[in-house]
């Protein structure tokens, strides 16, 4: 598992969400993450993968091993061509949900990550990128 490998996983079924978790776990282990850090990024991945499926109508997750200086990390990018998010500030609020969830997916994934970027265009889709460093 070389640190420059990029994996692109399809997210089309709830089985794919499980696969994303497993793959992210392997990559976090490969990057030398401790158990707590592994758990945090896998959990964030699970939240975002489920959103990609449930709200984005399916999409992809790209997993990258990243490095700045001596710090190693994992970057995950979730992309879909779904309806997009009209009000990002609202969607990022704890407890806000349009789908009967707990509304903790986006805000929680942000807290569990060191970097969080979201780009969404209504009618075109959503791209969310997170990174966590060792």
């Amino acid at each position, binding site marked *: 598992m070389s640190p420059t490998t990029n994996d692109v996983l399809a997210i089309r079924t*709830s*089985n794919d969400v*499980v696969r994303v*978790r497993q793959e992210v*776990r392997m990559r976090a282990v490969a990057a030398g993450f401790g*158990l*707590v850090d*592994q*758990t*945090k990024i*896998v*959990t964030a991945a*699970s*939240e975002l993968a*489920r959103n990609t499926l449930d709200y984005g109508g399916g999409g992809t997750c790209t997993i990258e091993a990243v490095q700045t200086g001596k710090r190693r990390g994992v970057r995950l990018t979730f992309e879909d061509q779904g309806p997009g998010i009209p009000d990002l500030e609202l969607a990022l609020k*704890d407890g806000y949900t349009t789908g009967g*969830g*707990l509304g*903790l*997916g986006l*805000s*929680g994934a942000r*807290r*569990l990550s060191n970097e969080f970027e979201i780009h969404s265009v209504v009618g075109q889709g959503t791209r969310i990128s997170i990174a966590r460093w060792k």
Partner: protein
Amino acid sequence: MDRIPILKLGRALLVTIQVDMHDRLALALEEDLSARIVATGARGVLIDISGLEIVDSFMGRMLDSIAAVSRLLDAETVVVGMRPAVAITLVELGLALTGVQTALNVERGMALIGHRLPEASGEFDEPDDE
């Protein structure tokens, strides 16, 4: 579709979750569990999650929901065996599971259920075990 087995353990029901739960499996579990609570008169439900490497908000909501349903059917729910890394992550995620009781292991979970009952332990005639 697979279903998650439910064991009877004294006056409680024990469910061990080891696999990643899909939505359908989770819904089926909730249904099976509520039927079993009513059929057995169980006073408590222990959900053993010591096999789970993560709990995300979907799973957290499921635990909350099982606890709420059980309570309406007169049984308390105790989540047992959560791993330390999972607990730390859940709290940072924003999910403190305040509606759910927790115990370190099945034994302590059983004690929790026993002691919350109005009947002193031992003096109560056990409901039929099957």
